């Protein structure tokens, strides 16, 4: 198969320094991908340890204090080191300039800096692991977080540093999308993944600094006893919650919006059909970004905030579900009468539709104050956010990873094994987390090390599911690595898509495009343009 050595961005500059000092968004995307996947693995190990411990109400492998550390680390690593950067920094960095016909992002050096900051911040956070690992929960609520003997300050400094990485990515993407689109690509001719990244970047820029200052205040409170959160010193612990959730609620939309962008791409490509309601989907991304800043109080219904505030937050939370619902209906409408191909990215996409619908709807249950009084801090909440974060974002991330894998590597993964893995993951996920909805409605509190005997069968079933889920990811790792060495080489457009990144070689050339491409057609004009996938049975 090897006639001459193919020229692409890997071969044009080689060696470790060509990676560590690169300004190429494609290499930076891959550097991020390594970090993201390592963080996912680390967070996953913590998850499996948690589920293992929960097989029994008695001690299985860790003490109660160690258990508190486990769920804190699981949350902090998964949120700050994995999911927030995941799609934008790993997939977005690689794909965005190609999708809009640009040679790179607006600020390549800032891009590389954001990766180094990501690594540095991650090391800081992990350092707190090997000293006295934090046991406050990833939410760092006061007063416990100001009093505990564990390494709160290194962990929060790590999160603070990671925040800069997120902000720089956000600034880079906003300017890139405004300024570097190819001629002819107006806002409404951009792919919807770009809209998703844009809305995400807006939230990253506006919300992350508030987290920064919240963590800084926490550090000051711990180090200097500032008195801002401690009632004995004149402060207010609920103030911390307001500050914290003002960022952390929009943060969950940083997690889901890029995933939704990926789903829009994949639904259209694998239904071989024009996306239904392009403008509605585009505007709904912006609508979600805006409204996401108005609902933070729904994490605090039981905190003692005023009833009137709670009612307003509840109403606005119902409201923010509407744009998400619009997207789901538009995606389904796209599939209707489409020519659907069940390649692995599409399997994960359809999995997303099902799992995100459950996750999103259960969010509405929790937004209902009278219901939340019973479900707050139970496993129902845990199940809800795992359905949206894992069943939503992670499924979309995997879908996107598989979709762009041939573009990034020039190789195709095993169709058989990827489909088997999808089944394993889908089953494992639902076993793990659907059970937790039931546990929650039966009253099982979250973050509890021990529990009443009556909950043990459900906990056992959930843990068993989590081991299956873990096995699925392990198989994925194997067949993806295998594809790098033995995968079928692919051409420019294995899936038959109409977005611009598929006009380049797989992998792309060093500078992406020899000449600035001009837009010939819209990204979803399957009704006008003939395009055949080159990867077929």
């Amino acid at each position, binding site marked *: 198969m090897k006639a001459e050595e193919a020229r692409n961005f890997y071969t044009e500059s080689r060696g470790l320094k060509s990676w560590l000092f*690169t*300004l*190429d968004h494609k290499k930076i995307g891959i550097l991020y991908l390594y970090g993201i996947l390592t963080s996912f693995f680390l967070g996953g190990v913590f998850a499996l340890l948690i589920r293992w411990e929960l097989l029994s109400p008695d001690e299985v492998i860790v003490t109660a204090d160690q258990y508190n550390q486990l769920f804190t680390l699981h949350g902090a690593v998964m949120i700050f080191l994995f999911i927030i950067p995941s799609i934008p920094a790993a997939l977005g960095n690689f794909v965005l*300039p190609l999708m809009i016909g*640009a*040679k*790179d*992002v*607006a*600020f*390549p050096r*800032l891009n590389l800096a954001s990766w180094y900051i990501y690594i540095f911040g991650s090391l800081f956070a992990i350092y707190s692991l090997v000293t006295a690992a934090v046991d406050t929960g990833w939410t760092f609520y006061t007063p416990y977080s100001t009093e505990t003997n564990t390494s709160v300050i290194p962990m929060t400094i790590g999160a603070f540093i990671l925040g800069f990485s997120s*902000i720089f990515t*956000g*600034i*880079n993407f*906003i*300017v890139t999308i*405004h*300024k*570097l689109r190819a001629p002819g690509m107006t806002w409404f001719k951009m792919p919807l993944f770009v809209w998703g990244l844009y809305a995400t970047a807006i939230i990253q*820029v*506006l*919300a*992350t*600094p*508030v987290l*920064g*200052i*919240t963590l*800084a*205040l926490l550090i*000051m*409170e711990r180090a*200097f*006893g*500032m*008195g*801002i959160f401690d009632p004995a*010193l*004149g*402060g*207010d612990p609920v*103030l911390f919650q307001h*500050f914290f959730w003002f960022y952390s609620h929009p943060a969950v939309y940083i997690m889901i919006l890029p995933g939704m962008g990926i789903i829009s791409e994949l639904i259209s490509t694998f239904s071989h059909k024009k996306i239904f309601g392009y403008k509605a989907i585009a505007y709904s991304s912006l609508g979600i970004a805006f409204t996401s800043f108005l609902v933070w109080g729904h994490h605090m219904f039981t905190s003692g905030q005023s009833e009137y505030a709670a009612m307003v937050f509840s109403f606005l939370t119902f409201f923010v579900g509407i744009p998400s619902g619009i997207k789901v209906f538009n995606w389904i409408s796209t599939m209707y009468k489409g020519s659907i191909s069940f390649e692995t990215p599409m399997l994960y996409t359809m999995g997303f539709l099902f799992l995100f619908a459950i996750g999103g709807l259960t969010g509405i249950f929790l937004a209902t104050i009278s219901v939340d009084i019973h479900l707050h801090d139970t496993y129902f909440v845990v199940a809800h956010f795992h359905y949206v974060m894992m069943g939503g974002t992670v499924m979309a991330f995997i879908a996107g990873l598989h979709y762009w894998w041939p573009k990034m590597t020039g190789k195709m993964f095993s169709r058989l094994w990827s489909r088997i893995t999808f089944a394993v993951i889908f089953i494992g996920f639902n076993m793990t987390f659907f059970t937790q909805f039931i546990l929650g409605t039966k009253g099982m509190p979250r973050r509890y090390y021990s529990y009443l005997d009556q909950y043990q069968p459900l906990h056992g079933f959930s843990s068993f599911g989590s081991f299956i889920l873990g096995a699925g990811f392990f198989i994925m790792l194997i067949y993806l690595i295998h594809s790098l060495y033995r995968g079928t080489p692919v051409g420019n457009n294995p899936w038959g898509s109409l977005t611009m990144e598929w006009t380049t070689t797989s992998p792309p050339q060093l*500078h992406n495009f020899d000449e*600035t491409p001009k837009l010939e057609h819209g990204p979803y004009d399957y009704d006008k343009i003939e395009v055949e996938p080159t990867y077929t049975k």
Partner: protein
Amino acid sequence: MSTTMKNTAEHPAYLQHHFSEPEQQHESVKFGMWLFLLTEVLLFGGLFLAYAVFRAWNYEMFLNSHQLLDVKLGTLNTIVLITSSVSMALAIRFTQMNDRKKTLISLFITLALAAIFLVVKYFEYSHKIHEGLLPGKFFTFSGIEGDNPHIFFSLYFMMTGLHGIHIVAGMSVIVYMIVRTWKSHFSSEYYTPLEVTGLYWHLVDLIWIFLFPLFYLIG
């Protein structure tokens, strides 16, 4: 990724390879800086919010506490910073007029004024440390009426401290601009880094203009 320094009419050395026109690069860089400034506003905004909340809860204490601040020094610092913003703006004006020497002088004046600001702050801080007017659990001063006067000083030190860190960061960027100006990197055709440095510096000045009345002039 081009590192060649060749300078042609169509492709000046400062034009980075992923931009097609100098104007596109210029607008993009300015836009990027404005976005960064927006994040700074949100960062300080959180602290201003904390100030608002605690002042609402402890109004008398705030008024009493602020008496311990030196309004004269605060006013001096305000004049110093505003003047430094003027000299920063002048630096850019002189570059637009291709006057490298006056640009350098203006940048040095900006730097000097920033240093004066920090020196004044040093005197203010050391006086407070001497008096025991310290944040949080280190607060030992007695003589302020009202509950929990340490909160006022916690906020004072945190907000002016964070602002001071931004002054230091700005100073290092200005030093870098001085080096680049001296090396003739800038001209009326290209001075974008100077311009965005100026934008940053003006924001740092603006934040002080909010801090000053809220801490020094209340009551």
